[in-house]
């Protein structure tokens, strides 16, 4: 399906929802829940259990869908909500003084789904995830949105509400921090 057709379908779903058709929201959830969960997982540092955040994102979407004007695509709109909900989630978590890595994330790091991966690979990728998790929230967001979600710079600027220059500054700083942490890995890869 082309991007334009997807946008048209999304708008049609929103229109149906505004007219009172609940199945349209079900369809939206069905289409976007996996992407929302994946993004939340990345933004929260791979805790794996993102049920609460996903539920909160769709609660916010349900409440705000009637106000959706179609200025951006539905996906971008949901990404914005997910970013905001992840910020809230992190804030709540910090407020509860859970300053250490949550047990879920530690468990996720220790779990190994496939037997054929080498211990070195596991450790390497766990190290990369730790480095990203250690970044401040604003840097981790831009890294996740640019490199993991593959969004364009103008899209990220729009959904984070920052200028292009500010985004470039954040990206540079985030990359520098990653270089400090993972410089050897990036050298080895070449």
């Amino acid at each position, binding site marked *: 399906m082309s991007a334009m057709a997807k946008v048209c379908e999304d708008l049609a779903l929103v229109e149906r929802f505004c007219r009172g058709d*609940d*199945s349209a*929201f*079900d369809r939206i*959830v069905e289409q976007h*829940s996996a992407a929302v*969960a*994946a993004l*939340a*997982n*990345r933004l929260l540092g*791979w805790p*794996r*259990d*993102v*049920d609460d955040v*996903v*539920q909160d994102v*769709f*609660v916010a979407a*349900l*409440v705000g869908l009637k106000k959706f004007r179609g200025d951006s695509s539905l996906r971008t709109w949901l990404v914005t909500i997910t970013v905001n909900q992840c910020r809230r989630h992190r804030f709540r978590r910090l407020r509860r003084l859970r300053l250490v890595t949550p047990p879920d994330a530690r468990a*996720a790091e220790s*779990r190994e*789904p496939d037997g054929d*991966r080498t211990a070195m*690979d*596991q450790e390497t*990728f766990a190290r*990369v*995830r730790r480095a*990203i998790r250690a970044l401040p929230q604003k840097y981790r967001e831009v*890294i996740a949105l640019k*490199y*993991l979600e593959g969004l364009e710079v103008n899209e990220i600027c729009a959904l984070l509400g920052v200028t292009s220059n500010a985004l470039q500054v954040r990206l540079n700083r985030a*990359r520098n921090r*990653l*270089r400090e942490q*993972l*410089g050897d*890995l*990036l050298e080895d*890869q*070449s």
Partner: protein
Amino acid sequence: MNEEKIKHLLAEADQRAGEPRFGPVSTAGVRRRACQRRLVWQGGPVAAAALVLVGMTLWAVGRRPGESQPPQRIASLEEQVRQLQAQNETTLKLVQEVLEKDRRDRRLAALEAQLASIPDPVKEIDRQVDKTAFILLYQADKLYKELNQTESAVRAYQEIIQLFPTNQWANVARERLSQIEQRRFNKSEGQKGVEKCEPRNV
């Protein structure tokens, strides 16, 4: 450090982290959650306002103990305090009930998901039986086709039929037995023909 290297490394790390877990999202569930949240958001400030009003009233009543208040005013204030307390308690109770119901629903959903993930023991036994029958058939086929031990193979096929009479592999074993019988019959018929023909050929 170029962009592609970072992108590649992060994508790999993300991929190796595994899929995120999240429960099924339904419109009904989302609506229920939104409703509960609205109640909490609305109930919280009401309860807080009621508490503040109760506090202020109590403070106002007890501020000047020396001064005499008109009895009617005191009674009226006391009545207001009682009403506010009742309202406050009702709101708090409602909020607690909603939160409790939410907790129960979530626990129930988790238990249902856990229950759904447990395999049906009957199906599991059927699967094991089917697997055993298949292994026996495989060994019998090997005896018959690769090692040419027809008698042992026949015994093995009969064993499968005896042990698992209703299983699909028992039907296959029956087919194999009938093939062996047919082959034996053809062979014996062929020998008879040869014996009959021999004198003429000689």
